[in-house]
Each structure stands twice: as structure tokens, then as C-alpha cells.
């Protein structure tokens, strides 16, 4: 064996350890190191790097089991709420929509039982801020328009007087004032 042969084999030992040699080259290195102690030692050095590195990484970067568990609790998707059929899931939206619609209709006086004075006098709503944001409808004080009530008012169930008289005048429920302008 010549010196250049040995050099050539030594230059292959790193690639051998890294799994970068073709089968033929690999067999050549195998055959050579069986009879050459220097190349055998060189190959052993190259082959020792991977287990050293893996051992250090496994030990140094070892996760704490309780931390893995904590992250697991955060990332596992919650089961989808499949028990409710579609109409049940839509129920809250429906209720809110109906209530909003009802409120709008009441406010515009287009409901059959709404005070007719609204419809006839094209009311302007003046909403005064109250101290109680959750002021109820009963707290609304209606200031009737100057013009006489329209004939249609008689037909309506007319909750208007009740609303006006029932408006509590306590200081803590300063009412929403609804002014119907002509």
C-alpha cells in the first residue's frame, strides 16, 4: 500500500461516518481499515462524533415531563360541540334577531298594538342618557305630540298611557325620554 492510498482512504473516513459514501467506496474503506491501523483509528474517531453528539443532546435538551404535559393541555384541540343539531346552535342568534326586530318595529310604531301617535306624527326619538344603562321600557317617558291623537289610536290597544303613567320618577332611574315631534 502506498502513502497516497492511505491518504485517499483517510479522506473518505468522514464521509463514511456521515453515510455519504456510495456502496463501492464504502466497501473499499472497509477492506482497507482491516489491514491499516492508522486508518482504522481515523475512522474510529470519525464514527465516535455522532454518538457523542447524540448523547449530549439527549441529555442536555431533555424536556421536563410536567412541562410537556402542560403544553399538551394547551394544544390538544377541544372536541367539537357536535351534540347540538344545527337548529339548536342557531337558537341564540334567532332569539337575538327576533328581539332586535321587535324592538325596531316597536320603535317605529308599525306594530298593530304600537301607539298610533308614532305612526301619524313621524316621531323623532330623543334618547337621553340615563344613569342606569339597563333602563327598561317601563322607564321610558313619552311626551305626546302637540297634535291631537289620530283616529287610528282608538283601535290600538294603546299601552301608551300606561307607559307614561308607569314611568318611575325615582332619581336612580332617570328615564329615557322619548319625544315624538310633529
Amino acid at each position, binding site marked *: 500500500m502506498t502513502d497516497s492510498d492511505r491518504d485517499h482512504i483517510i479522506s473518505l473516513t*468522514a*464521509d463514511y*461516518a*456521515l453515510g*455519504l459514501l456510495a456502496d463501492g467506496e464504502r466497501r473499499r474503506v472497509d477492506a482497507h481499515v482491516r489491514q491499516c491501523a492508522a486508518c482504522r*483509528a481515523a475512522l*474510529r*474517531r*470519525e464514527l*465516535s*462524533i*455522532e454518538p*457523542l*453528539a*447524540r*448523547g*449530549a*443532546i*439527549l*441529555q*442536555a*435538551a*431533555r*424536556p*421536563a415531563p410536567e*412541562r*410537556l404535559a402542560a*403544553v*399538551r393541555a*394547551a*394544544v*390538544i*384541540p*377541544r*372536541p*367539537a360541540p*357536535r351534540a347540538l343539531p344545527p337548529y339548536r346552535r342557531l337558537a341564540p342568534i334567532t332569539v337575538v334577531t327576533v328581539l332586535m326586530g321587535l324592538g325596531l318595529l316597536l320603535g317605529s310604531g308599525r306594530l298593530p298594538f304600537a301607539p298610533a301617535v308614532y305612526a301619524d306624527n313621524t316621531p323623532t326619538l330623543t334618547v337621553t342618557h340615563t344613569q342606569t344603562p339597563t333602563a327598561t321600557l317601563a322607564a321610558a317617558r313619552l311626551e305626546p305630540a302637540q297634535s291631537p291623537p289620530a283616529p287610528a289610536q282608538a283601535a290600538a290597544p294603546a299601552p301608551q298611557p300606561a307607559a307614561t303613567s308607569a314611568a318611575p320618577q325615582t332619581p336612580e332611574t332617570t328615564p329615557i325620554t322619548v319625544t315624538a315631534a310633529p
Partner: protein
Amino acid sequence: MNDQPLLNWADLPANDGAADDTAGLIGRCLSGEQPAYVELYDLFSGGVYRLAYSLLGDAQDAEEVLQDSFEYAFRRLNHFDARKSAFKTWLYRIAVSRCRNKRRRKWLPSFSLSVFDGDEPSDPAAPLPDERAQLNEQQRVVWAAVGELSPKLREVAILRYYAGLPYGEIGIVLGIPAKTAESRMRLAHKALRERLSDIAGEE
């Protein structure tokens, strides 16, 4: 880095047998089985954490990457394509991307893992962090040497030495051609061999 053509998906090595189990697990996840998510997490979370910790050198950062990666992976599980890569490769790619973002945000272009030489506590009685207390002398030297690699070389070294990925898959994880992964690995290996000359090859 991106001026070279990326590895063709067709060049990927065939997935091994473990991939079949993972595919079944992913299928169960997608059909809404919560225990399957737990199983999938338990199978891969340790690897993702070790990868992140090895790249960032900080337990809290590694934990954030772990959480972020799995949240993303579970949310996008239906986008995973087993014909293109192993699940581990796909997951590690997600994790490496987050590690890089974290490193950029922290302005740590070449931070070192070598927590053992620079900031030893002045009080010898001071308690060591868990991971330091667990290492023997040889492991400390090796871990410090890994930490001294540049981020690019360290990425390849961790994916090869620890995760045992073939170079094609390392290329996919890092977004580089397989040949680039190989040449970086040669450099990383050479650097480690030189730094570890005192202990390399010892019986």
C-alpha cells in the same frame, strides 16, 4: 440560500414502516378523535422540544416553540401530505421555522449554547439549572462544542446526529437542497471533530 433549486419532492426517500402508524393516527385525529391528538403529541413532542432547545439554548423559548408548532400543526393537519414527507419532517420544518423567527426577534445571529463556559455562577454552591446538573464532564464539553457551531451548521448537525434524518429530509426541514445539507454536515462534523479531538475515538 434560496437561489438554489429546492429539492424535488420526488427525490425523497420512501417513508419507513413507522409512517403507517402515524398515518393512521393522523386519520383518527382528522375524524375528531381527541385521544389520537394526545397520542400524536406524545409521540413527537419530545423530539420537537429537543430540537428547539438545541437550536435556541433556552428552555422557555423551546417550550414556546413546542406549543406554537403543535398548535399550528394540529390546525393545519388536513394540509399534511404523507406522499410528500414523513410527518416528523413536516413537523420539524414547522418547528425550525419558529426557532429561526425567535432567534431573529431576539437578535441572536450567533448565540451560543455553551452556557458552561461563559456564565458559570460565581458562587460554586449556587444550584445549576437542571439540564446542566444532569451532564457529565464529557457531555458538557460536547454540548458546548455543538453550541459553538454557527446556527446553520447547528441546524444540520442536530437534525442528523439527534433526529437521524436522511439528508433529503434535512433539506426539506431547512428549505435547502440535499447537497447543501450534506456539505453543511461535512463542515459541522469537521468542526466538532477538531473541537473534540481529546475525546473523539476514545474507547
